[in-house]
């Protein structure tokens, strides 16, 4: 059997080897039937050869994005509360009729909120950290996308199989989610079609959009690439869209964490931290 280069050799102890899920071939050196286009598998020959559930590059970029996203979220909220009003077009201020207003207090006395108090101004460090985290997120994201195309991560792990995209196939997975059925053991080794579509949406639609709408608020970037702003309908439109796209990303984060929780928090976390997967009974 040809061992793909992506398989990693680890010096496993017997104890760790026992943690291999039952459904996975750990015993002989014979070619093994593996789930999902041969993408997964683990073999044991003289040494234990185990392919991690998530490759090191996926794990590292996942947690870098997580950290920077949380920093962006907290600082984004801080910046938002200095003016919790939204507009459409190029301009908008307290003298303008807003598109909508968030019913929250503001950190500036000049904003009419209906609250009798003003929150402390945190914009200074929030802006510094927001942009620093954006650099981390963008650089990590670019590295992830480049490597993901290069090493086949997207094709292998995220591109849904055509058969899964049939209405019947989709209906089956959706029905299973709606019944909160725990995932099958093989799903611990691969993403189902809903996960694949969601992750692709987050990586190739929501993240690029949130970066674009963020950059469109920069007067310097707008001077260099005016179309980046005008296509969106103006600077205030960019700000409003930035808010909504961020909202979708937060929604993704909440559902993502909920699904991890339902699937077995400890085993899924271990898989994303160490790369090793443990079967359900040992996990959550």
């Amino acid at each position, binding site marked *: 059997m040809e061992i793909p280069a992506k398989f990693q050799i680890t010096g496993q102890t017997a104890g760790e080897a026992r943690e291999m899920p039952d459904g996975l071939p750990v015993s002989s050196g014979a070619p093994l039937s593996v789930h999902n286009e041969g993408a997964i598998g683990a073999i044991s020959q003289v040494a234990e050869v185990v392919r991690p559930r998530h490759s090191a590059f996926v794990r590292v970029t996942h947690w870098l994005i997580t950290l920077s996203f949380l920093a962006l979220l907290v600082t984004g909220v801080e910046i938002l509360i200095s003016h919790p009003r939204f507009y459409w077009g190029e301009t908008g201020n307290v003298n303008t009729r807003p598109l909508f207003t968030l019913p929250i207090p503001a950190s500036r006395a000049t904003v009419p909120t209906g609250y009798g108090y003003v929150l402390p101004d945190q914009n200074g460090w929030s*802006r510094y950290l927001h*942009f620093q985290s954006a650099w981390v997120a963008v650089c990590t994201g670019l590295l992830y996308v480049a490597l993901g195309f290069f090493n086949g991560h997207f094709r292998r792990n995220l591109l849904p199989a055509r058969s899964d995209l049939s209405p019947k196939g989709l209906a089956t997975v959706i029905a299973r989610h709606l019944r909160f059925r725990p995932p099958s053991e093989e799903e611990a080794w691969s993403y189902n079609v809903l996960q694949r579509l969601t992750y692709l949406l987050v990586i190739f639609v929501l993240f690029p959009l949130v970066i674009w709408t963020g950059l469109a*608020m920069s*007067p310097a970037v707008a001077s260099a690439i005016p179309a980046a702003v005008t296509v969106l309908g103006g600077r205030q439109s960019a700000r409003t869209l930035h808010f909504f796209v961020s909202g979708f990303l937060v929604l993704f984060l909440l559902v993502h964490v909920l699904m991890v929780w339902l699937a077995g928090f400890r085993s899924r976390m271990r898989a994303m931290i160490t790369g090793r997967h443990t079967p359900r009974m040992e996990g959550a």
Partner: protein
Amino acid sequence: MSKLSRRKLITTGLAAAAGASGLGVAAKLAERYGLIPPDAGGLYGAGETLTYAAQRILTRHSMAQSFAPSQISKDPFANAVDPLGEGFQRLQQGGFADWRLAVDGMVARPSSFSLAELKTFPSRTEITLIACEEGWSYIAEWSGVPLAHILNLVGALSQARYVVYRSFQPDWWDSIDMADALHPQTLVTLGMNGGDLPVPFGGPLRLRVPRQLGYKNVKYITRLTLTDSLKRFGKGLGSAAPEGGYAWYAGI
């Protein structure tokens, strides 16, 4: 140790050394081409430097978007300012006839101009957007003397790298690099929407830097100082903004 891990160790070491020296070279080059902001130290210095350097490379000559007269905001917002004090009121009562703009530092001919003198200089009018870091914005027609014209008039020395500008309000001062100072849209602004610049909007004299956020557009300017280093000004961070926790560069 197996051969494999030794090889890995050596390549990793070499890569780290190459990376470190690469960073060193990059830092030297960035310093030489003026890509390091004065607030590059500290916790957020890395992000701030990347933003400033990237935007400087991208925007050295780019022009802020000009809008049509029909797009001028009917309801601009002046934002609140600290009380201007009796001294300002006296000048205001005199129609700002005694308002002076001093220009000093690295110039061949230190000078001081009255508003009447400034009004005789070549004027430029721009319909541009001003955006506050808080998120709000408006569009207005601004007229004034390009800062580049004044710098030319006083004979700015070639080693000058920044223009420090001070407000009548003693705690409010800022600075811009020469890319922004010599930019044709950077105006020593005397007028707004066809009239004199109203006091709430910074009248009689405001520096408009349309490629940066509102807080770089200091109101009530009285003095310009050209310098090759910002270390001697305030806490050496380039402006009052970083001393209050805000970034010196506000192109984003």
